[in-house]
Each structure stands twice: as C-alpha cells, then as structure tokens.
C-alpha cells in the first residue's frame, strides 16, 4: 500500500449511512453453535460448572489488565494484553454457555432483556454468585508475584482444559480445545519469567520467592471438587480437579526448582470456598470496578 489508500478507504468504504462504522452488529460468542445439552447431563450443573471456569478467566483477565500501561517494557504490555484477551475470550464463551442452558443466577432480575447473557452474568451478579477461586481473585502484587500466580493458574487451567477436550458436552469440549493452545502459551510465558526472576539478581530472587510464598496458600482449595463437579465428573462432563494434582505439582516443582526457588510445603486441602461463592473483599472490590459503569446505566446498550 504505497499511496493514500487508507485515507481513501476511510472516506469511501462501505455504502450507506453506516459507512464510517464497519461491522456494526456483532454476533454473540456462541452464534451459530448448536447449544443442545446431550442426554443425561443436568443443565443446571453444566451451567454452574461453566460459571466456575468462566469466572476464573474473567477475574484473572481483569487482574492482568491492571498491568496495562504499567509494565516497564512494551513487549510485556503486549503480552499482558494478549493473555488477558485470551482469557476474556474464554470467559465470554463460558458465560454464554452458562446462559444458553438457563443458568443466569439473579442477574436477570437486574439486567434489562437487551443485555446479552454473557454481560448479564459478568455485570449483574453479586460477589457471592461468582464461582472463581481465590487463586485468581487475589490482588496481583508486584511483577514477580503476578508471574508466579499466572504460572500456577495457567498450569492448573491447562491441566483441566487438556482433559476437558473429551467432555461429553461438545460445546465445553470445543471451548477447551481452543483454550489449550492459549493456555500453553500463558504457562510458557509465566514459566520463562519465573526462571528469569528466580535465577536473575538477588533482588529478583527475593521478590520471586516472596511471590511464591504469597501465592502458595491460595492453592489450598484448588484440588477440592464441589458437589456439582462430582456429579458432572460422573456424567463425563467435567474434570475432577484432584485428577490434575500430580501433573500440576510436578510442573510447578520443576519450574521453581530450575528457577532456584524454594518450593513451599503444599497447603493442606480445604473444602471449596470460591467455587461455592465464599470470597474475600478483594473480589468485591474488583467487581465494583468491573461492574460499576454497566450497573449505573442498566437500560443502556453499548
């Protein structure tokens, strides 16, 4: 493109009154997808499970987005943007899947009908209706803690998604198949940083170790299945988080070891907390920012 074609294109592309705003009217995330629930799967359980996986992605995307315009190197701004966009994409698909099987919680009492399911769920549920773990909801801390958390969260999620590709729900299986590629990159990116920070300078080592020590307690409930997950595991739909334990601990131990970081003792298992709606005020604060504008204008379309 040598001449001023971009300018011309702007001025003349597309006929009609919408000529300056291409692509008005966007498809919903699951447009064109057969969302029928296969026999033998409880739609309420399926929807609830999609909220667990979707909320993890949405909340971690929000935490990573906090780094936009705050990273030192531009390459890292781009990487934060990519990772957050991938997770946001996963969240949109999963929340839309929950909505497609009628799991909308109390969100529809507040959201006007024109608001799509994904937004009703993201913007019009209260904190106690969110199903994310504390691992993703906790504040990010410095760059070291951010990368340790991303390593742990993406290792866990990749282990789940890898198995979820065989889910009996074809929509969930397809979302997982797409996500595996993305999560492989996220885990790799985080692992490379943890190596550099752990085995970099004395200060970066100290900070990375502090990050590990801050993140590890958040792993106490990540292998504990809820009743919903147990029923869905039996139905061939969901992944038992306990089944990923050996893979996750092996990966984390390997990366930390290579990064010359001390692996803390794994916290004792506790019953699910975030997955059943028990959250710290950190999530309330995060959601207040995320939801504020949309809730201020409940009748608006964006």
């Amino acid at each position, binding site marked *: 493109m040598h001449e001023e074609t*971009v300018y011309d294109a702007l001025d003349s592309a597309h006929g009609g009154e919408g000529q300056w705003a291409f692509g008005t009217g966007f498809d919903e995330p699951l447009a064109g997808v057969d969302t029928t629930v296969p026999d033998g799967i409880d739609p309420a359980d399926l929807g609830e499970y999609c909220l667990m996986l979707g909320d993890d992605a949405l909340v971690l995307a929000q935490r990573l987005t906090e780094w936009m315009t705050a990273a*030192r190197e*531009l390459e890292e701004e*781009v990487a934060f*943007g990519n990772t957050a966009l991938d997770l946001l994409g996963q969240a949109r698909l999963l929340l839309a899947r929950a909505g497609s099987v009628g799991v909308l919680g109390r969100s529809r009492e507040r959201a006007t009908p024109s608001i799509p399911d994904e937004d009703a769920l993201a913007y019009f549920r209260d904190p106690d209706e969110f199903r994310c773990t504390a691992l993703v909801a906790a504040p990010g801390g410095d760059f070291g803690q951010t990368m340790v958390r991303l390593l742990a969260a993406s290792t866990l999620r990749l282990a789940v998604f890898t198995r979820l590709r065989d889910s009996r729900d074809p929509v969930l299986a397809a979302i997982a198949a797409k996500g595996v590629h993305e999560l492989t990159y996220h885990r790799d990116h985080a692992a490379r940083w943890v*190596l550099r920070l752990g085995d*970099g*300078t004395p200060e970066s080592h100290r900070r990375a170790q502090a990050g590990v020590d801050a993140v590890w307690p958040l792993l106490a409930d990540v292998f504990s299945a809820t009743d919903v997950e147990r029923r869905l595991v039996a139905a061939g739909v969901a992944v038992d988080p306990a089944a990923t334990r050996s893979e996750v601990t092996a990966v984390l131990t390997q990366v930390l070891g290579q990064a010359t970081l001390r692996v803390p003792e794994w916290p004792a298992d506790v019953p699910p907390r975030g997955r059943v709606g028990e959250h710290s005020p950190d999530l309330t604060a995060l959601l207040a920012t995320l939801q504020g504008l949309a809730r201020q*204008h409940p009748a608006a379309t964006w």
Partner: protein
Amino acid sequence: MSAPALDRPLDESALQGRFDATIAAGHRIEPRDWMPEGYRKTLVRQIAQHAHSEIIGMQPEGDWLLAAPSLRRKAVLLAKVQDEAGHGLYLYSAAETLGADRADLTDKLIERRQKYSSIFNYPTLTYADVGVIGWLVDGAAICNQVPLCRSSYGPYARAMIRVCKEESFHQRQGYELLMTMMTGTAEQQAMVQDAVDRWWWPSLMMFGPPDDESPNSAQSMAWGIKRHSNDELRQRFVDMTVPQAEVLGVTLPDPELALDRDTGRYRFGAIDWSELQRVISGQGPCNDERIARRRAARDDNAWVTEAATAYAEKHAGV
C-alpha cells in the same frame, strides 16, 4: 553500525548530491545510506515524538479498560490499547535504525526532554470519550499519518503503513461505539455530545500550529519527511468529519462551521492557540499524571529488566 563499503571515498558534496537525487526521484532513504545530520536529527525527533504519543496515548483510554461496560467493549478496547503498544514498538525500532536507543528515548520522554502529542493530556471523563478518541483523535492521526506512508525514510514509511491500517480499525470502532450510544438512552446521547464538545478543538490542534507559524515544516517538506502542510491536513480532517457528525447526530461546537459553496470545503472558527501552547508547555490537565505513570513503570520495574539481563548473562552460550 558499520559504514557502507565504497569503491572509493566520496566527499560530502558528492554524498549530498546522491541523497538529494534520491529524494528528488521519490525514492527512499534506507538506514545504511548516507544522510545529512539535520535529516537524521529531524527524523529521530519526529519518530520518537510519534512513538511517545502512542505509548502515552494508551493511558487516557486505558483508564476505562477495567470498567468497560460490556465484555465485547472490554475486548475491543484491550485490543486497541495493545495495538498502541505495538505501534510504539515499531516506531522505536524505526528510530533505532537511525542510531537512537529505545531506553534513552524513554528517559527523554520521562524527563520531558522530548514531547508527545498534547491531545493525550486531556482526561477521559466518560465512556463516550473512548468512542470520541477513536473517531476524532484517531481520525486526525490518520489524516496526519497516511501521507507518512510515503515518507522518504524507508523504515518509518513502512512502519506507518501498518500503523495506519490499524488506526483505521480504531477509528471505525470509535465511530461504531458512538453510533451505538446515540441509539441508546438520553443519558448516553448526552455523554456523546459532551465528549464531542470537549475533544473537538483539541483534535484540530493535533495538526500543529498554522503554516505561517510552523518553522520546521518547510525543511521537512523539502526532505520528503512531511508531505502536506498542517493547515492542509487540518482542512482535510474537517471536511471528512463534518458529514460524519451529521450522520451521528451530534453538533460540533463551532458556530462558525459552514460549508463554503465555492470551494466545497468547510470554513471553521479560530482555534485558541494559547490553549495548545499551555498544554504543550506542561500545563494541561493530565501532563503530570501521564509522565508519572511512565516513570513508575520504568522505575518500579527496573529490577525485572535487571533480572532478565542477569539471567541472559548467566545462561549465555548454554
């Protein structure tokens, strides 16, 4: 960087002659070609200022990333802000082909020894500002930048081709957001009009001072770094934008704005240049905040870069 191999040494006037001939023929100057020092300096200054504008320009819209009112809008805005980081990267790379160093240019930005577009010193008060920045600010940037795809310096021209393609997306997403808001609630419509009122005049200032007060323009045009005058580009932007405002249903805040039937172009009111001077000299509403954020990004995370460097040294050759 090594000097190009020559069959025989050329004196400066012969090199200058070859450079002038390249410019006159409309061909491109490439990094290893000889170039006058003034040309190099002017380019480094312009490209750095452009790169800084992309990076600082992430902030006004970035302020809405966490609060975007739908997940689709959040994804769109995140992609856009990320694009701007990418633009900064291409442009700093183009400056590096002229011997500049990215870290040094970043320091100059933070120490206020180099400038960025003054438009980014205004705050984004509502979500309509995101749309208006796309429509007007990116629209003005496109008018400025499309001719730079034909700039005489090769790496800059090639970077601008990609930048302009993405800016075109940005402009349209802004307009699309505004179209959506204008079909929404009365409150949303008022937000759009308010944002247009605040951003219109600063957008016109983006083209720089009027031609008779733009001292460096003549030399830049002779060198083929710049292709059109400030006033010419400003007029082009106004002519492009007025019909778009009519379709959108907003009023541009200029009572003197009127179509000149003879020329087919729009006449517009006098620009308050003292405001531009004020904002450029650091007295805009957000100058300190914009620089402080970049300074914090650099200083608070210096340890990360030091770690990566130390790791690379430790593992060199492994």
